[in-house]
């Protein structure tokens, strides 16, 4: 279980690093998903740890992960749609300001 917790922490760190460092929007969106995966893994660890009442796992964090996945999926879809539209209109794939503005 500790190893999953550490893995989750590593994914969060990687995702945050990617979000900050990567310039391309698509890479930022992927990094956000990595970050999200790390958080969901931590929820899984919490579910396993909280299994006090004789259950295999605490179901509440699992329900939260499912909701979180739906939200993250919607966010990813929205971000990709916007990035795509931006690329179609301006030809840009990054958020850097054009030089003439």
């Amino acid at each position: 279980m500790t190893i999953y917790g550490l893995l989750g922490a590593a994914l969060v760190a990687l995702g945050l690093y990617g979000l900050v460092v990567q310039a391309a929007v698509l890479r930022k969106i992927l990094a956000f998903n990595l970050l999200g995966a790390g958080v969901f893994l931590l929820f899984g660890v919490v579910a396993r740890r909280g299994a006090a009442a004789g259950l295999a796992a605490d179901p509440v964090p699992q329900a939260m992960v499912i909701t979180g996945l739906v939200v993250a999926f919607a966010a990813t879809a929205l971000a990709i749609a916007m990035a795509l539209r931006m690329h179609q209109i301006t030809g840009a794939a990054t958020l850097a300001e054009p030089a003439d503005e």
Partner: protein
Amino acid sequence: MMATTPGGALLVLALTLPAGGMLIAFVLGGRAAERVAIAVLAAGVLVALLIDAAVLRASAPLVYLVGGWPPPLGMTLVADGVSAAMLLTAALVLLATALYGRATQATPPGVTEARAPFAFWCFLLALAAALAAAFLGGDLFNLFVALEMLTFAALALACLEGKPSQFRSELRYLLFALIGSVLYLLGTALLYGNYGTLDIRLLAAARRADLPTLLAGALMTAGLAAKMALFPLHLWLPPAHAGAPPAASALLSGLVVKAAFVLLLRLWFWVLPPIPAAAAAPILAALGAAAILVGSLLALRQARLKLLVAYSTVAQIGYLFLMFPLVLAGDADASSRAWLGGVLQATSHAFAKAAMFLAAGLIAARLGHDRVAELGGAGRAMPKAVIAFGLAGLSLMGIPPSGGFTAKWLLLTSALATGQWWWALVILGGGLLTGGYVYRVLAGSLTAPPADHVVAAPGPAGPQQVALALALVSVALGLLPLASFGLLEIGRPVIGGGR
């Protein structure tokens, strides 16, 4: 054991009315969407008034157990004084924006239905539902979902026009908001692992100052600060708010930021243990103070009217953070004053900033540009919009009588009473700088128009009156006697005494 209180069903209505309205508007399509939205938002004001009355009558928070399941297993909807006040503020600003939108987003008979107005009305209702969820949510995970709904609805409203520059700034806004919500979610995971519940009231009873709680608090505060554009994280806000259409800017600056503020209040005064929170609060306030000074100075230097108003939002949000060390200072009277001042700043800024963005949008549409240096003649062309801008400016500066004055006065006296005089200096300095940038706009608008002055034909009078009405409300808040803000005290955790 918590139970549903009388009137708890009103909270369900506050949530399902806009959500149901959005679905009905979506099914009925373009022309009907406008009528559905206005009817639902008007009913929303009524529901908010009923909730306020019920909270006042009971002198206790309204609670509704969703599905009859008590926490920690079930989820609650809770309306205490802050939620009730913010709900009413949101309902009024949303209705005003909808009435303003009738001019720009209408589908008159005989005209083909277009996608943008249809989307405007549907997402307006979605935003109303998300705001209600954020103000009424009684557990931290529900609040996360509400924040995400809010981001999606606000984002769609902001890029309705589909301009290239909009996509860039709104995409940056989305990425900041997503980082913010993931950090918030990480915090909730830690809190759940530590306490086995995410219900705010249960957490308030069980809170202790251990490492997971403090770490979660730090992560969630950082996430919410990113969503509120607190000083070093403010870079996304001005282009995103200034680039959006006026109605969307008014909602983004006036309401969307305030939802994250209400969550921050829940986190700091309910969930986090008071002693470490009191130790960390000056950091928040220092960032807020930096936001006030930097935001106001940048607003002074802006060449475009809408960017000026957006930077003013960065500064005014800074005031909200000054309340944290004052509330937590341990002096009961000063704490109550700072609490009132902070929440009143949130509501009066909501009205004033919505009025300001709507007025700025009208001026820009009439003159065909929004360059601050060339506003000559605006006062003659659209007197009501300029008066609305000026009145809203009074409230932002904190000149009596206005809601902004009462809010800043309460914060100021609380700062002096707790011996933290440096925050008082920041409040006064921020007021002077605000006066500077409001003066720039007003003085420019009241000069004679240039010789080759061309203005567009006057639009309908309705939108100007809406902007003026919002500005008048932000001023009128300052005419209410202090005792009438007793509503905001209902359900406030007592700092120092514990609960």
